[in-house]
């Protein structure tokens, strides 16, 4: 890994074959089409959410890794940039818990939805 990192990262920048970008471009198109189909076909429940999140993460991963060249950057930079946003997931968990409590109290004190 370290070896390939340094060969790709020559002093004049990131050199990769154009074909790689075209393949990723095509994959992003296909994944977006899949996401859209999930909604178009009206898939519901847990299957809907696992599919949407799966396609989302694959797309985000391809963009960051290839288009933004993160796959070839030094690990120090990769960790410095990718770890902090991951911690946002804790914030998400806190807010989900908070929102569930809020709606519970709203329903308990103000009754069901109008």
């Amino acid at each position, binding site marked *: *890994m*370290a070896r390939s*990192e*340094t060969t790709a*990262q020559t*002093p*004049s*920048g*990131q*050199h*990769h074959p*154009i074909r790689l*970008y075209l393949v*990723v*471009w095509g994959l*992003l*198109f296909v994944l*977006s089409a899949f*996401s*859209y189909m*999930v*909604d*178009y076909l009206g898939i519901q429940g847990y299957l809907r959410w696992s599919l*949407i*999140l799966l396609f*989302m993460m694959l*797309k*985000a991963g391809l*963009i*960051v890794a*290839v*288009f*933004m*060249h993160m796959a070839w*950057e*030094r*690990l*120090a*930079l990769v*960790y*410095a*940039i990718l770890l*902090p*946003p991951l911690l*946002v997931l804790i*914030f*998400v968990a806190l*807010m*989900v818990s*908070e*929102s*569930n409590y*809020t*709606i519970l109290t*709203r*329903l308990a004190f*103000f009754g*069901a*939805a*109008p």
Partner: protein
Amino acid sequence: MTQSVQTHSDPDLRPAGLRGVAADFGSDQRAFKTASWGKAMMWVFLLSDTFIFGCFLLAYMTARISTPVAWPNPSEVFALHIGGQDVPLILIAIMTFVLISSSGTMAMAVNFGYRRERGKTAALMLLTALLGAAFVGMQAFEWTKLISEGVRPWENPWGAAQFGSAFFMITGFHGTHVTIGVIFLLVVARKVWRGDFETGRRGFFTSRKGRYEAVEIMGLYWHFVDLVWVFIFAFFYLW
């Protein structure tokens, strides 16, 4: 510039993996050995932007989960009436494909930049800017349509009042990013076209000769705009 990086610390001589990360951060030198300051700082800026967009989406999630009022169904709200029937989310799908294509052309522009093919680089950047402008145009159309249907930051005809504020805040902030990106693209494309990076002509982003990395740094910003849209598409339009 790169010379000094190489002599200070040959990345090949440093350990790989986590050991390398520890060595880089504890080396009493710049931590991001192979990424120039320009690139590292663009990444740090994008990290800060990630937190802003993250907070917007989190606030939207909190509002949506905690309200007892039914949330408007995005699949129907963003449907377009085409050929006598409602096609769900069609405009959003087209916008997504346009933005992804702009990311594709941008990635290729960066590649041709490093190969010093100025014509192709500038042309691909202009194409990227054009696709970006098309995206903003479609967003303006979408906003106009929703506003004419009575969506406001404080109310809308279909349900939870918070829908409007979340929609205008999130898509508006993203649209602003795209607009700034289009301007940024045009500025850098002009520099490439005129050969500023060859002559070392002084100016914003062009202080050193042969430094086509400026195109890559610009590209990082543009791909980030596409990246944010991936999350907005999933969380706002598909939820």
